[in-house]
């Protein structure tokens, strides 16, 4: 007979260290090697098995020590010295030390052609490979067993926060070599991953990989008894059960076959709050309405853009279509980000003013094509079509003709909006880490990008301001600069219309407690206390 894992060995009112946590995941992990991953479902699994040099304070987006206990930048902000935690071992027994760190960086930096495409996080954050022009990463030196020096090309606000990203987790050099972790190939339209990424991930994290049952769509992790971190795992086993359908996840939770799942549908929140442990995360995202004046010349006029903004009843939208805790956005970043400008007031819903602005601009009764995605649900936009409908109704109320343009998310929506092909479109962003550049930079640093700021007279200045601000080493000076930029963006530029920030939630059954919700979806599931 099969061995049902013994989940009732020790009673105890709170917590059960032999317990299994069954977690409903919305998708299968793409790969087990986080370096080649770029999606949340994969990272959720990685985060339980791996640690980076830096990490995040539970429940926040703030950088916190992880495998490095401390770090100091040089005065020019280009050389960083990390002190490493000692006595740490990878799951396979390989010791973690400065040598291992540098081997990891070397591995990440020296990707073959396919790997350079597959490791998207490195590409976007580090800007290149093998010392290519513009690459941020410049080298790693092991000063001694527990000291590492990393050089970067220019000072930037995101360093070293980005080292906390799961993609840059520390992996066992032995295992990387043994299972040929870098032997990635492009074949057909996809990548063929090496054995390492398929079945042998080895990190230093609290949970160890046990199995990925592809026929049953479950990933099983077990406790790493040698875990060196502070939060010791409180569960023996963590099983990710992949249930793509949202309603199915909810029903599985109700039926008790899973203990928790991510991204509950906001309409279910009230019920989940009542019957289960609904953990609401701090909002760390932004929903905006992108505008592109190159595609739609009407939008060149600031008055038109403002009119569009005033015409949207965002209070109503937030109240009726977004989860509780969602808020109307005043700028292109959520509150918690350094550089957020508290003094900015939201554009109030004012249809009269919108009409007036439109007539001033001579664009009363203008028409606009509004794009929105289908086949997708995102934390910042749980139901795009409903948001679209609300905005459409608002705009029509001020005499704007709205042509809907729905497009499947992966069926061209992303490419076309990101390539600056859409006049007005719904889009959003969830932060990777707590830097203003992660928001503003992502939207505007490319003058020819999605909102094509380069097409405006102020575009060039704006782009330059952004990159200057990012290079300021001093945190408070940097924050101040960003506050100014935010104010400019909202009052003078208004290249797009930030709509709202919504707090996503994660839900556990009443039996489970002890998991702190994280704005970065960096939940430490291993700290769950399962009361079975």
């Amino acid at each position, binding site marked *: *007979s*099969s061995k*049902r*894992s013994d989940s009732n060995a020790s009673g105890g009112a709170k917590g059960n260290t032999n317990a*299994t946590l*069954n977690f409903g995941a919305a998708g*299968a992990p*793409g*790969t087990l090697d986080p370096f080649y991953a*770029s*999606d949340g479902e994969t990272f959720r699994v990685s985060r339980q098995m791996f640690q980076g040099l830096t990490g995040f304070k539970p429940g926040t987006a703030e950088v916190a020590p992880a495998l490095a206990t401390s770090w100091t930048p040089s005065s020019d902000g280009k050389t960083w010295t990390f002190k490493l935690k000692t006595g740490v071992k990878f799951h396979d027994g390989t010791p973690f030390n400065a040598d291992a760190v540098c081997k990891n960086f070397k591995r990440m930096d020296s990707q073959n052609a*396919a790997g*350079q*495409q597959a490791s*998207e996080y490195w590409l*976007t954050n580090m800007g290149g490979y093998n010392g290519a022009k513009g690459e941020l990463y410049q080298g790693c030196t092991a000063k001694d067993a527990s000291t590492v020096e990393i050089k970067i090309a220019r000072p930037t606000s995101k360093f070293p926060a980005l080292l906390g990203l799961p993609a840059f987790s520390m992996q066992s050099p032995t295992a990387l070599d043994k299972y040929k972790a870098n032997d990635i190939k*492009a*074949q*057909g*339209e*996809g*990548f*063929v991953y090496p054995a390492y990424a398929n079945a042998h991930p080895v990190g230093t994290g609290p949970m160890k990989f046990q199995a990925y049952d*592809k*026929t*049953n*769509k*479950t990933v*099983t992790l077990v406790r790493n008894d040698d875990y060196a971190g502070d939060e010791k795992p409180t569960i023996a*086993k963590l*099983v990710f*059960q*992949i*249930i*793509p*359908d949202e*309603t*199915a*996840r909810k*029903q*599985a939770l*109700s*039926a008790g*076959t899973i203990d928790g799942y991510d991204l509950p549908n906001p309409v279910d929140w009230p019920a989940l709050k009542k019957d289960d442990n609904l953990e609401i995360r701090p909002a760390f995202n932004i929903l905006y309405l992108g505008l592109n004046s190159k595609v739609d010349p009407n939008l060149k006029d600031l008055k038109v853009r403002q009119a569009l903004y005033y015409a949207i009843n965002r209070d109503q939208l937030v109240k009726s279509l977004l989860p509780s805790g969602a808020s109307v956005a005043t700028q292109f970043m959520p509150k918690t980000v350094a550089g957020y400008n508290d003094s900015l007031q939201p554009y109030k819903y004012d249809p009269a003013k919108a009409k007036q602005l439109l007539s001033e601009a001579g664009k009363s009764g203008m028409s606009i094509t509004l794009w929105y995605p289908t*086949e997708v649900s995102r934390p910042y936009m749980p139901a795009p079509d409903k948001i679209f409908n609300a905005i459409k109704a608002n705009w029509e109320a001020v005499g704007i003709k709205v042509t809907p343009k729905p*497009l499947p*998310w*992966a*069926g*061209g*929506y*992303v*490419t*076309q909006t*990101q390539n600056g092909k859409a006049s007005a479109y719904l*889009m*959003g*962003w969830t932060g990777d880490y707590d830097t203003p550049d992660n928001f503003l930079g*992502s939207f505007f640093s490319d003058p020819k*990008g999605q909102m094509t700021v380069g097409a405006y007279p102020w575009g060039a200045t704006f782009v330059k301001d952004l990159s200057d601000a990012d290079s300021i080493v001093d945190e408070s000076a940097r924050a101040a600069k960003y506050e100014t930029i935010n104010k400019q963006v909202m009052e003078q530029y208004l290249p797009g219309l930030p709509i709202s920030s919504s707090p996503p939630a994660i839900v556990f059954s009443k039996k489970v407690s002890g998991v702190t919700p994280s704005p970065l979806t960096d939940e430490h599931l291993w700290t769950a206390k399962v009361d079975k």
Partner: protein
Amino acid sequence: MLRYILRRLLQAVLVLFVLSLLLFAWLRSLPGGPVDAMLGERATPENRAAMRKTLGLDDPIPVQYLRFVDNAIHGNFGTSTGVQSGTDAFSLFWQRLPATVELSVFAIIIALATAIPLGYFAAKRHGGLLDTGSVVLSLIGVAVPVFFLGFVLKYFFSIEWHLLPPTGRQSPDLNATRVTNFYVLDGLLTREFDASWDAIKHLILPAIALATIPFAIIFRITRASVLDVLNEDYVRTAEAKGLSRRVIRGRHVLRNAMLPVVTTIGLQVGGLLTGAVLTETVFAFPGLGDALATAFTTRDYPVLQVLILMAALGYVIVNLLVDLAYAVIDPRVRTR
């Protein structure tokens, strides 16, 4: 007979070839694609373009097709980009196949076990209460959308009454040994009977949901064909011979009445895969239907291609088998 099989197989190959061509051209001409699905909103246009280049997606479609055929000839059908990234599309198919087969077989068993007796007795008591009742039931069965039924079933059996699991193929905390990946069978092979039982429990609800339409159709065909056969002269002959009721029912009525039913079962198999897309989505049942649905939303071309081609092939093969089965029961076809 052999010639007939050969002929059908050759036709199937032709059909598959044309299908693969159409499929390939069509998929590539869609907007968006796997790169969008993989990179999401994060990547810059440059990143996207570079990735398309690396993956060869920017080549002209005929070039891509030739490459695909070349690879396919070498047994390489590409790797998944979305359903289970990096997995060979064909092994993905093999991984998911057992689940769907298991589900379909269960559904067909449920459908047959209920539809045939019910159809027979409805025809026997033509116009009676049982007849009218079951006809209405079958018509309603056809009219209820499968996914809605799935929800309702789950709502009662899993959430309200906690009788059966709402999702998945096997309880995750069960450490079952895998042999064939047919879980019920595996449990029997390894004598882990609780694993079999657990798998069966996971199968019941989706199988019921999946079985409704085949049930309704098989029921209707059985009823109609039993009605026909009952009117046949040879049944009257059998009665005139004074044969016992059992012999008349088995040898003379049912054996003949089953002929159209067998054909229908073949046609139903195509429908089952269709139903599986919905059922497996509703029940998070990790089979081919689920993979298909995911492959569509993630624009996973290689997987889509393999799954659709395999579905077509499977359909052809199953219907060939059905024809052969038909030939076994119907001597008029066999002795050609």
